[in-house]
Structures are given as structure tokens and as C-alpha cells.
């Protein structure tokens, strides 16, 4: 399972088609992967597990989210004003 995730991350070209977001509006795709990365990190590190599988979400959100949005959200997380539930 871990090997499958590792090879997926190694062979990463760009964010693949996500059938949850089949339409033109990809706003939620970007935000969902950002949330999933932080939630995954929080869940796995709270159990002292390896957080490498979470890197998939990070690759995807870095591919599709505008960096301005990501920087704003990162700041929000740092100073506790992030609106999403992590």
C-alpha cells in the first residue's frame, strides 16, 4: 500500500483527473486537497506514523492552487485564522 503510494508520487506528472470534480469549476478541488493534506498530516503525526502518504495531497494542491491562495491559507493556519476545519 505504501509502495503503491510511493510509486504514485514518484511518477507524478501533474494532478490527475479527479472524478469528484468533473466540471470547469476546480475551486473546491484545490481547497479539498489543501484541507486533506493538513488533515492527513495532523491525523498521522498524532499517531506518530510516517506522513509520506500525505505528500500526494501536497503535490496535487501545489499543482492546481494559485500560490497566492496557498500563501494566504498558510498564514491563516499559522496565526489561527484559517477558516477551514483541519
Amino acid at each position: 500500500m505504501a509502495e503503491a503510494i510511493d510509486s504514485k508520487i514518484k511518477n507524478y506528472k501533474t494532478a490527475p483527473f479527479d472524478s469528484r470534480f468533473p466540471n470547469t469549476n476546480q475551486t473546491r478541488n484545490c481547497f479539498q486537497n489543501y484541507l486533506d493534506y493538513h488533515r492527513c498530516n495532523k491525523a498521522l503525526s498524532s499517531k506518530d506514523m510516517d506522513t509520506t502518504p500525505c505528500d500526494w495531497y501536497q503535490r496535487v494542491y501545489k499543482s492546481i492552487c494559485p500560490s497566492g491562495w496557498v500563501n494566504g491559507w498558510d498564514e491563516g493556519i499559522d496565526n489561527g485564522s484559517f477558516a477551514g476545519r483541519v
Partner: protein
Amino acid sequence: MAHPSQLGFQDAASPVMEELLHFHDHALMIVFLISTLVLYIIVAMVSTKLTNMYILDSQEIEIIWTVLPAIILILIALPSLRILYLMDEINNPHLSVKAIGHQWYWSYEYTDYQEIAFDSYMIPTQDLAPGQFRLLEVDHRMVVPTEAPVRVLVTAEDVLHSWAVPALGVKMDAVPGRLNQTAFIASRPGVFYGQCSEICGANHSFMPIVVEAVPLMYFQDWSTLMLEDA
């Protein structure tokens, strides 16, 4: 790119645009044929001294001029729907680029591997080199590899803009707070121009888009160069 006194579309640089071109030829031919027929009939009716007072109804011609237009409409609708669904096909892109509209320039981000980001301003007319195109050239072009499905995610930082490149058959609105996805494949190397397509203030006409399609090897060289310059 566009030429002076141009009547038709620019040469297609993507498979979708080729399909749109052919469909437009097909639909326009039907329009020309119908218009010619109608004009002929008008001229014929207007230019005769004969009058007709005795024909009251005629089942046959009524059937013909109901069924024939229905058939013509179907002949237009079928290729149209075919292209509509073709444009909606799931594609697995090789590259994602973000195009972000600002007042009054575009910025592009390539963040699949490392972070390449740059602004793309129009070259002012007084700074053009000989042979360059007025109001169309930019300082940094959006470079993409040929023959590769490219996903473009369009958004805006301030007001509405629209990212359009006619030769690639692409236009997508840039809405603040929203990420709109479009995709294209550049079938041949070349430089393709477009202009902002949503009114966005004083310099709306002066924030063009230039896509430069190059073979993959040159794209890799360009991205290495962009990373070094950053």
C-alpha cells in the same frame, strides 16, 4: 495570428480548433445556400408582372418546407453536439499551468515540480523591436510543450478578466475567488496570440496573452532557465 482584412478564423493550432473550423465551414455553407435561395425567390417575386390569385393551399409544398428545414437543423445539430461532447472529454493532462489575471497583466505559475512563476506584461509600442506585433507582444510568454495535453487553471486577483487564445480554440473567464479549468493540445510549434476578453478597466485592451509552443526538449531547457533566473 490575426491578419489585416482577415475574414475567417486564424489557422487552427489545436485539434479542437480544427474541429470548430470545419463545423463553422459546414454551418456557414448551409447558411449561404439558404440565403441564396431566399434572395433568389425574393428577386423572382419582385421582378414579375404576373399576379397569382388562385392558389389557396398546397399540401405537398407545405410538407417539403417543413420537413426540409427540420432535416437541415438535424444536419447542423449532430456535428455541433459531437464537438460539444468532444470538448468535454476527460483528458489526463501532462502539465498544469495557472493563468492569473491582474489589472493589467497576466501572471503564470508552473508548480507541478518546482515553482516557476512570472508576470507577463504587454510590450509598450515605443519599445517594440522591428517585426513585433503592436499591442500583442509580451515580455514573458507562456511556454508549453507541443503535442501534450495542457491544463490551464484560470483565475483573477482583482476584477473579472478572460483568458483567450483563438488559434487554440480556448477562452475561459477569470473570476476572483474561482478556479476555472480549460485544456488544450498544441498540435504544432508556434507562437499564438490572444487578448483579454472581459472588460477590466482602463488597460483592458493592453494585457495580451502569448502562448509559445515548443518541442518538449526546448520546454525543458526553458523551464531550467526560468528556475535559474528566479
